């Protein structure tokens, strides 16, 4: 792995981010209505609209708007939210931070649960354990987040049980246990869905690896079952798993959007939906950019990790 490889990837990353912003911007240009309509709401008059449009610079040609936006971003200025008149940068970073807590907690939990589960299933192929794990993971991957989340809400947050709050968010800085209590359901939802996904993946990777010659060779050298399973099979299955987990970051981000909506969790997903609903262009752009960047960075990290772990890969 060379420095030049990393540089190359970073260039790609910037290129990707640029392309993402361009795509998102183009799509937003097509959106019916604009921020001014939303700001004025059901009180708009044509003159008021025109005034607000020119004040917000929404009447400039799209190209001018895009490059103005880009120019500011390059200087680290993400603009002012059209919906709330608050600066976009801090708002989106805050929201992102909260979402990241959700995502990372889920991801860590998933890794702790899913990997052993997948290994277990693969090593007992066709046995009841495998069937049980497979069945559960089938249900897990087949349950859209919003269904799962709603069901959890009905069961665990219903007034009669009231185990968890139905929604909202408490900052960790304010009340640690309260915060934990509040993220429990969203994290549970994401974890269940992702665990199903990743354990299934690990299982199939493992199953493939277990068919490989070197597994048989290990067995026929008299190595113990455990060693063959964990030292050889798992390690070789983890490599492709890393890539898939990184790709799942994209999936996770999508899941986060839904889960935040269901649990009214003030993260980046909700922020983006609000922004789209309100045609809050700077916010949409910043949100999409930050999501795309986290996806790209996750993939980059995965590739680097892959390169570090798998001695065969030469960048």
């Amino acid at each position, binding site marked *: 792995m060379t420095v030049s490889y990393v540089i190359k990837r970073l260039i790609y990353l910037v290129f990707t981010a640029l392309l993402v912003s361009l795509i998102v911007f183009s799509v937003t240009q097509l959106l019916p209505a604009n921020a001014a309509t939303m700001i004025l709401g059901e009180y708009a008059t044509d003159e008021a609209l025109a005034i607000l449009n020119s004040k917000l610079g929404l009447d400039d040609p799209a190209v001018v708007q895009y490059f103005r936006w880009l120019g500011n971003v390059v200087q680290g200025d993400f603009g002012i939210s059209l919906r709330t008149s608050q600066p976009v940068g801090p708002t989106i970073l805050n929201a992102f931070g909260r979402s990241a807590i959700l995502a990372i907690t889920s991801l860590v939990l998933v890794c702790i649960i899913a990997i052993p589960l997948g290994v277990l299933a693969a090593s007992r192929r066709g046995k009841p354990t495998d069937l049980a794990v497979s069945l559960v993971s089938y249900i897990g991957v087949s349950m859209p987040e919003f269904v799962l989340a709603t069901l959890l809400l009905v069961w665990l947050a219903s*007034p009669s049980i009231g185990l968890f709050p139905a929604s*909202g968010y408490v900052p960790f800085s304010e009340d640690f246990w309260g915060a934990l209590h509040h993220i429990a359901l969203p994290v549970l939802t994401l974890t269940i869905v992702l665990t199903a996904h990743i354990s299934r993946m690990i299982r199939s990777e493992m199953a493939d690896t277990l068919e490989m010659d070197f597994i048989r060779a290990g067995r026929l050298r008299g190595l113990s079952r455990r060693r063959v399973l964990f030292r050889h099979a798992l390690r070789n299955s983890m490599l492709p798993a890393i890539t898939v987990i990184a790709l799942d970051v994209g999936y996770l981000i999508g899941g986060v959007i839904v889960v935040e909506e269901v649990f009214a969790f003030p993260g980046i997903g909700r922020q983006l939906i609000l922004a789209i609903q309100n045609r809050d262009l700077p916010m949409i752009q910043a949100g999409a950019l930050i999501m795309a960047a986290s996806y790209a960075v996750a993939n980059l990290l995965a590739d680097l990790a892959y390169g570090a772990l798998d001695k065969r890969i030469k960048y």
Partner: protein
Amino acid sequence: ATRADNTLRLSVNITPGVLNPMLSRAAAEYMMSEMLYSGLTSLGTDMTAQPDLATEWSSNDDVTQWRFTLRQGVKFSNGQELTSKDVVASLRKLLDPETGAPGRRNLGPIKMVEADGDYTVVVTTETPFADLPVALTYPTAKVVPADIIATNFDSLAQVPVGSGPFRLQEFRVDEVAVLVKNPEYFVAGLPYLNQIEIKTFPDAAGSTAALLAGEIDMIHDVQPTDFARIDQASGVSGLRTPSGRFLDVVMDTTVAPFDNILVRQALSYCVDREAMIELVADGYGTPGNDTPINAAYHYYADAPHKSYDPKKAKTLLAEAGYPNGLDLELIASVKPGYRSTMAVVLREMAKAGGFNISVKTMDHSSYLDQVWKKGKFYVGFYNMMPTEGMSFNLLFTSGASWNETKWNNTTFDEYVRLADETTDSEKRKELYANAQSLMQKEVPALIPCFFDILGAKADYVNGYEQHPRGASFAFHKIWVGSNPPTKS
């Protein structure tokens, strides 16, 4: 006795976004500006004008000129004294089309605003306008310092400068706004509360759960579906006030098929109004009679409700030239949720009457852009207005700024104009009754039911009087009792 911290934690469902009081549009924003600012008059729960900055007011005989006497010694939060020049500047700014203030057209036909000395403001109207003191209770009609208007109006979006009972301490969009007691408030002894935390719970279930768990003390706006549940729980109680808030089905009376009065009438016979209340408002409402006025207003004319009569509807429709029924597309914005519920229920009810309605929902932005005031058949939503005249003038007179139906009935216009210009209550009653019955007959819009204002609070919250208009709150009169929530 009050609770030690005397802090009220309140939930709203839409985050207050706009802080500038003249630009605010939503209930949560009105709430904030009411706490931070004062106006000339405020709206009582009986829909009359109450003193706020103005302690008394009077008009000339033909009600074209009003004099307001201001309180003395009122201080802005920046320490400046509030005088008539601030009131004049504020009202002028509000009326300036450049400002783009949402409530500009709701204040009445104001021609001129002038100061008469430091503590008197004179307002002159184009035409006689008896309701001016009530009109000036409009939530955006708040007073801000004249020099800020002149030099730095935009700064109000971040830093409020007002004379209300509270002052802003912290504001995080989409999360929380913390307001603290204004020690210099002009009414001695008020407010009772030391602090108010306004928390945003976009999800109704969330705020309900939070209230039940004792994490908040009060919900400003409860969904009809949650109300019974809250009301039954111990330690909390539901608040319910009949209101003039309504959903209407707007029909553009200038285009086919709605230019045919028979079609509109047919549709109005397709509504089972009691069932509608049950299905759309979960029973928390009052039936509507296709006029924006109900019993919550002064001059409500109690007429028998139209019955659900699909047969008659069919006959009318056939008469109108649609013997085989009529296909229509009804558009409903997704905000608030019961717009589409109403659309679906209407669709089902109108089937029997020969209407084949398909429902199309739309996100609110697109709705505002493409449908509102433009579409020919859609679901509108309006809060209660302070007066009958404002409601009519806003929606149904020919010159109404939100003249969605383009009904433009000169007889109706005349009734409303005459009522505006008179102070004689009997005469007004008659005129408004005529206007209402005309609407019932001609059905420019379908107004099947009104929604009650629903809220909820913990039992230890005292002094709160729910306002039927839904845009006034009087938080300065609330205190938190000594049986505080037992929080885990």
